């Protein structure tokens, strides 16, 4: 068995980046995710794998560094927390429009504004419904453990290159700061320039006489061309929904009620499920692993056997809207959320659940 190391979710992201063949990390410090860049700087991967690590002057700059690196067909990533992500939304829109693969990690804190550095899940809309301008989507992965923080780096890159689209890891302060054991996966080497030229024929690797120039742009002033581009993007997002929905269901087979929760809240709700089962309540947990594409079909499939669903989030009810869309009015969809960085205990969630079904 591979060595198991105790590390924070944030540290796991950094180690995963080095070990999965990432070419470049560009970032700007912000709590609660600064350990990611700190760990990378400490590890000095430029001495080993040749990975570039650079502290940028702002999040605006780091996301645009991703645009440059991704244009070259390189595996590039950044990480930040909520206010930083707001600054990156311009860049994300351009990256999506120019169909560039990259990985963005958001270790979410409470907002709006400067908010709190404590955990939050209020960036769900920003991550899943756009954030930047225009019609675009990203694959959004929601890790619930340090191991998933590690594993989703490689998965995020895989999906980014599969779709030529930005991928996002939407974590939270709990998953970022919590230490758990992490198994390091086998080292993958970085792609060679030859492999990039071969596998990413669109990349700006230098125009040779053998091919036409490559231009990376999101600009299309011709109306017909631009509409076509948008349709290409929509097709891509549909494919994500067909091929890459990921979720975990826990004790849902016989459930009469199901809690939907992601990230740290899914861990807490798992304990709530255990409590409910001890009291003979048939409660299950659906944990979306991809927030986009959302497990709409799975919810749709479950609804006939259920009496109610409840979305539990560290927000005012954002994922709730997607749950309601999937349920489509057939059963009550309840909500429990805490704000301000307050993470409810399993008991509090259980109380809220019991209240919701008795109303």
């Amino acid at each position: 068995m591979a060595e198991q190391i105790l590390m924070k979710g944030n540290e796991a992201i950094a180690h995963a980046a080095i070990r999965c063949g990432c070419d470049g990390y560009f970032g700007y410090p912000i709590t609660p995710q600064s350990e990611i860049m700190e760990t990378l700087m400490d590890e000095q991967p430029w001495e080993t794998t040749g990975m570039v690590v650079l502290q940028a002057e702002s999040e605006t700059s780091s996301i645009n560094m991703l645009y440059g690196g991704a244009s070259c067909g390189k595996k590039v990533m950044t990480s930040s927390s909520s206010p930083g992500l707001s600054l990156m939304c311009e860049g994300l829109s351009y990256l999506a429009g120019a169909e560039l693969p990259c990985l963005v990690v958001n270790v979410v804190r409470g907002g709006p504004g400067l908010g709190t550095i404590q955990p939050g899940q209020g960036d769900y809309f920003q991550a899943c419904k756009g954030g930047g301008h225009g019609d675009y989507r990203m694959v959004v992965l929601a890790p619930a453990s340090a191991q998933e923080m590690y594993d989703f780096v490689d998965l995020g890159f895989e999906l980014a290159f599969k779709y030529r689209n930005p991928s996002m890891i939407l974590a939270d302060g709990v998953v970022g700061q919590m230490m758990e054991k992490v198994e390091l996966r086998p080292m993958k080497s970085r792609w060679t320039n030859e492999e990039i030229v071969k596998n990413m024929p669109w990349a700006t690797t230098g125009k040779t006489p053998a091919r036409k120039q490559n231009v990376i742009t999101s600009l299309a002033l011709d109306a017909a061309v631009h509409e076509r581009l948008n349709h290409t993007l929509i097709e891509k997002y549909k494919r994500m929904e067909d091929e890459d929905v990921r979720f975990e269901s826990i004790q849902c087979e016989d459930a009469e009620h199901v809690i939907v929760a992601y990230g740290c809240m899914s861990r807490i709700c798992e304990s709530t499920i255990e409590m409910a089962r001890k009291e003979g309540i048939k409660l299950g947990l659906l944990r979306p692993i991809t927030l986009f594409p959302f497990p709409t079909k799975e919810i749709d499939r479950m609804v006939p056997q259920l009496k109610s669903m409840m979305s539990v989030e560290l927000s005012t009810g954002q994922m709730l809207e997607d749950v309601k869309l999937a349920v489509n009015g057939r059963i009550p969809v309840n909500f429990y959320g805490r704000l301000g960085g307050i993470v409810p205990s399993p008991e509090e969630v259980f109380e809220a659940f019991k209240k919701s079904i008795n109303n």
Partner: protein
Amino acid sequence: MDVKDIIKPENRVYAKTPVLTSTTMHYCPGCSHGTVHKLIAEVIEEMGIQEQTIGISPVGCAVFAYNYIDIDWQQAAHGRAPALATATKRLHPEKYVFTYQGDGDLASIGTAEIMHACNRGENIVVIFINNAIYGMTGGQMAPTTLIGMKTATSPYGRDPKLHGQPLKITNLIAQLEGTCYVTRQSVHNAASARKTKRAIRKAFENSALGKGTSFVEVVSTCNSGWKLSPVKANEWMVENMFPEYPMGDLKDR
């Protein structure tokens, strides 16, 4: 004698570099962009670096630079070209990477990106077209607009009390340790164009030597924005722009 008899290789006195595409430029007649594009393309041809050069185009009139210079291009968000260039050069140290930016792009919205790229001494080339106006959006005031100059957003002339003084960003850039070569040139006549070409070549050579950032400002005309004929625009530039933005090297080491 028929025209066909004249078009022969031995009679040719001038040829367009093959690095320049045959696409008709969208720039207004009299605009400096076309000349600067040609100079860059010629330098790329002469240095034999077409396969190794990656250009970063801005937002502004030069957004379509990729239609005219036949190399690989990345089109950046407004002002962010130096960030793209930073990553591209660091991930491809063997390549020549340059940004091509106007005054609104470089000296207004992209001030942070250009300052920090230059301060880090990224081994890139920056071509900065300063025509003291926003051309593409229809002639609004730029950070480099002269005092008293009328634009769409300073219809009574730029008032320093309202808008501040023209930003001499090239002078600031020259102060940064990361830059190795900072120069201000123009392309309003053959002699100045030749000098600008030499400056661009030096900038690309510096990049291969790893000396730091090379920054070439080209004080330019926007005759449409300035509402002048091409010839008058050149005259106006010499009379008004040159005193504010004097020609010559600010730094060369």
